[in-house]
């Protein structure tokens, strides 16, 4: 395998995994042993090995979410050894490799914890609260007509870069999971500032921030106290600057929009 280390020894690990039948049942941590794990495996491949074992033994496999396995879909959300997406900075769980662990390690694996992200089963949580926040305003609904000419709308490179950075949010929810307050502010701020920076976003600028923040509050997420865990754990590096932009946008919208309710 390209990039594999022929000297890397397979590892034996103890996993402490959160098992929960469904939304309404009580869950608990269950211990499992996995053997002969290659350091070149991704964390999810290691869980695949565990699940094969469980199937062979006639036990229920561990439910966990995953899709792209290349760091872009934001579904592989696991709280690993007390950290969102595990110990490595700037990675999703699917991009985390077993070489970050050592033979004999005990690894605790839990689902995201937030009342707004109820556990569906085992390690899989329901993040539809994020979808509802986006539906409240995280889009541009003006009719753009046919394909416009390139460069018809001038946008300075610096601004388009910053908007792009904000747009890289993959909606994983690590910010909520890591935050002491289970606040969704980093996620919301990424979308609000992305669209506030671009001229296409200006038409709905005020209603967007008002509606998205109202939905965020309604979903029961906590309020930001600028702790900074979110940005430190965000796999794509969304910065706290976006939250300051969100606060500015919110104040400006509340002070000047025509919305009286």
């Amino acid at each position: 395998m390209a990039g594999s280390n022929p000297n890397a020894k397979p590892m034996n690990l103890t996993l402490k995994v959160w098992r929960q039948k469904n939304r309404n049942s009580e869950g608990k941590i269950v211990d499992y042993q996995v053997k002969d794990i290659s350091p070149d495996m991704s964390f999810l491949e290691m869980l695949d090995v565990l699940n094969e074992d469980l199937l062979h033994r006639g036990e229920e496999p561990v439910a966990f979410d995953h899709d792209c396995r290349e760091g872009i879909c934001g579904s592989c959300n696991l709280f690993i050894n007390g950290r969102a997406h595990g110990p490595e900075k700037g990675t999703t769980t699917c991009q985390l490799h077993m070489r970050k662990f050592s033979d004999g390690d005990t690894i605790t694996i839990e689902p995201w914890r937030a009342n707004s992200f109820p556990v569906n089963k085992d390690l899989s949580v329901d993040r539809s609260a994020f979808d509802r926040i986006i539906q409240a305003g995280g889009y541009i609904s003006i009719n753009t007509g046919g394909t416009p000419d390139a460069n018809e709308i001038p946008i300075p490179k610096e601004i388009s870069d910053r908007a792009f950075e904000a747009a890289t949010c993959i909606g994983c929810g690590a910010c909520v999971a890591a935050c002491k307050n289970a606040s969704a502010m980093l996620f919301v701020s990424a979308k609000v500032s992305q669209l506030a920076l671009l001229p296409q976003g200006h038409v709905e600028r005020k209603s967007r921030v008002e509606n998205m923040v109202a939905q965020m509050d309604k979903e029961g997420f906590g309020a930001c106290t600028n702790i900074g865990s979110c940005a430190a754990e965000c796999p794509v590096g969304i910065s706290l600057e976006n939250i300051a932009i969100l606060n500015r946008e919110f104040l400006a919208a509340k002070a000047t929009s025509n919305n009286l309710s």
Partner: protein
Amino acid sequence: MSWISKTFSSSIGRKIIVAITGLFLCSFLVVHLIGNLQLFKNDDGVAFNIYSHFMGTNPLIRTLEWGLLLGFGFHIYESLTLWRRNQAARSVGYVSNHSEQNSKWQSRNMALLGTIILIFLLVHLYNFFYRARFGELDPDINNNDDLYTLVVSSFHQWWYVALYVLAQVALCYHLLHGFKSAFQTLGLTHRKYTPAIQAIGYAFSIIVCAGFAIMPLYFFFFTNGQGEPISSVAPLVDSINLALK
């Protein structure tokens, strides 16, 4: 609900109130600290009593006092409302959570630090403010209430000094996070100026809290029962007094 009450009952709206009142309280700390420096005058408290008489009777100061009360009231009410909301946002916690690897202790413990400050504040207000304003204090040589003597005797009680110093440590940590955090909440960030705001915040927290903490420590360790410096520090205190004349 009108748009105003809706704005200020939203999560961001409440945060903004906490930030504005927090910075307002910081400005109060500066005034309070500078005024209290009169305690170091080696004049049997004459200057300090003149100052506290002025603070207790001047109509402008008395009006501002209500603003201060409101500032504290809103700060405490709104921050604890947010804290309750945030506690309710995660009712099942993690078995293993290493938040110390992604954030600072003081940032995660603002409510604990604030509560320590609040307890101190109640004791402090009762002991000095309540007794100066509503109690009976003996007059000093200018016929001003002799608050100075009360301060000196309080600062000779070990538990009072300990509470004072603990509260200042808590306030320092509260501000190490709070000062810069308030600017972030208000959206006052800029790539050029934010590093300076952070540096000023750190310096402010340490200087102001050390300044308050030195007062009880000085009286406890370096003065006699009348507040006169003991012989080992008397020359130093005298020369500072002389230099400031």
